[in-house]
């Protein structure tokens, strides 16, 4: 059976600045030999500290970066073999939500315009069709259609994150990558957004790749968990198993940090 997403032995390294003229520059391995898969309707959590490679992994899944080794298959198709035009079309099926709800929306555009942008970029829809889809997306995230005519500064942080989610689901994706999507939010708003993601998953059958440094947040939303440190996957398993029976010291530290 084909998984929604298969990451196969992926490695990504960056060249650091050259330190001496006649030596090759040192390399930093951001992700080392990572493999995992994700199915429809499933949430996979990736936890780890900053610099552990979780965002690099997300960027490779989104085809923002190419792996140096290994393959990333989306619905059985290696996304790095697609032509530019085909990749553009394929992007309708996988979308991303970022951490900063302030930085990810153009302050000078009405939010309805920003929400429609992925649609304009990938689809030949008429203005009327686009308007309908924007209303539909706003409705999905619990906002009203007249909110589309407002500007980002008129919304709170939680509402902006709803807008960012509306923008991500407007192309009706099968996979949603959420990179620290609730980290900048207050606890009560965080709970609202986590609930929204779970509802959307049920309604739309989304596969969600949920990246966070907060194990408690990951525990509350994910079916399976993958723990990363220094570019390596330390352990992976069902959320219940990893949480009740952590095999690595690092996972135990994360557990201590989020316990009361």
């Amino acid at each position, binding site marked *: 059976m084909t998984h929604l997403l298969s990451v196969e032995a992926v490695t990504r390294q960056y060249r650091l600045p050259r330190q001496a003229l006649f030596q090759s520059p040192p390399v930093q391995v951001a992700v080392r030999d990572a493999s995992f898969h994700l199915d429809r309707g499933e949430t996979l959590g990736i936890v780890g500290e900053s610099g552990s490679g979780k965002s690099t992994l997300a960027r490779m899944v989104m085809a923002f970066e190419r792996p140096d080794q290994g393959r990333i298959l989306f619905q059985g198709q290696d996304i790095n073999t697609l032509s530019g035009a085909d990749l553009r079309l394929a992007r309708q099926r996988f979308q991303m939500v970022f951490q900063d709800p302030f930085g990810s929306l153009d302050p000078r555009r009405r939010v309805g315009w920003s929400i429609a942008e992925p649609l304009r970029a990938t689809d030949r829809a008429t203005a009327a069709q686009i308007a309908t889809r924007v209303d539909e997306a706003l409705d999905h995230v619990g906002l009203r259609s007249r909110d589309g005519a407002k500007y980002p500064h008129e919304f709170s942080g939680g509402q902006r994150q709803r807008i960012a989610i509306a923008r991500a689901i407007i192309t009706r994706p099968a996979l949603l990558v959420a990179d620290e999507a609730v980290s900048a939010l*207050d606890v009560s708003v965080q709970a609202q957004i986590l609930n929204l993601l779970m509802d959307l998953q049920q309604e739309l059958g989304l596969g969600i790749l949920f990246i966070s440094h907060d194990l408690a947040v990951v525990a509350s939303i994910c079916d399976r968990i993958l723990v990363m440190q220094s570019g390596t996957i330390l352990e992976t398993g069902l959320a*219940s*198993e990893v949480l009740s029976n952590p095999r690595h010291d690092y996972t135990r530290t994360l557990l201590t940090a989020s316990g009361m």
Partner: protein
Amino acid sequence: MIELNNLSVRLGQFAAVRSANLTIRPGDRIGVVGESGCGKSMLALSIMGMVPDGLQVDGALRINGHDMSHAPESDWNRHRARTMAMIFQEPMAALNPLRRIGDTVAEPLIVHERLGKQAARARALALLDEVGIPDPELRLRQYPHELSGGQRQRVLIALALACNPSLLIADEPTTALDANVALRITDLLVRLSRTRNMALLFISHDLAAVARATSDIVVMYGGDIVERGATHQVLHHPVHPYTRGLLAARPQIARGSGKRRRLPTIPGTVPPLADLPAGCRFSGRCPQELPHCASICPQPVATGSGGIVACHQMGAGA
């Protein structure tokens, strides 16, 4: 040692902190929790005498018995080094990138303690050692960008400790740090508070960190102190509906379950200052609201367990 009596911070007619009463004694470890925009940082700044221009402070603030309401800036400056010190969330922004760590840490010692250069340097070295920075000799000569986030926060703690303050205010000290680094910084603050008998005001929205660091908790909502009590009591038997909502909304690791469930939420968000209700600030979002909540301000009453709560439900004997 430090006493706040009906202290309010106002912007025109709107109160960012409303009638706060709080006493801080030597060695106290008090956590201040609440969402952003609830007045936590403003409360801290008012204690430091650093409320931004344009805001007005009413009520009494006493430091060691002295009323600071009309104190000149020179008094504040003396207190700000010796009586109290503050560390902030973003350690990179708080350090001058063009100065060596050693010069930064030695500065308050030269200015306030009037130490010579050599003596100040020796003290700086001892301070870096006290806050657990490995190889302090080397660090003294380095610049902020050469240090990790956790080490920068340690440098700021050393800087804050330079003139032996009786109170350290830590405003979201661990928020920008990774989980394991945050744990070590939290533990360091607790250790320093114990060994120096120094009071700690620990402001954070991270309830796990507050639970670890403090013995008492103050819960703020919309500028009001809505609940106060012993940390374990407030976290395990919260009384105020806001505290209860906040704790319930927090994602938790239930051992062995790992089952996904919808989280209980507090409806809506913290309203902007101008839109806060005149009575109980939490009315409008409160699940147990009574008809008079929005108009009448609840008075703080004692809870059965030694804490204090401001809620009409409690006054009614509920």
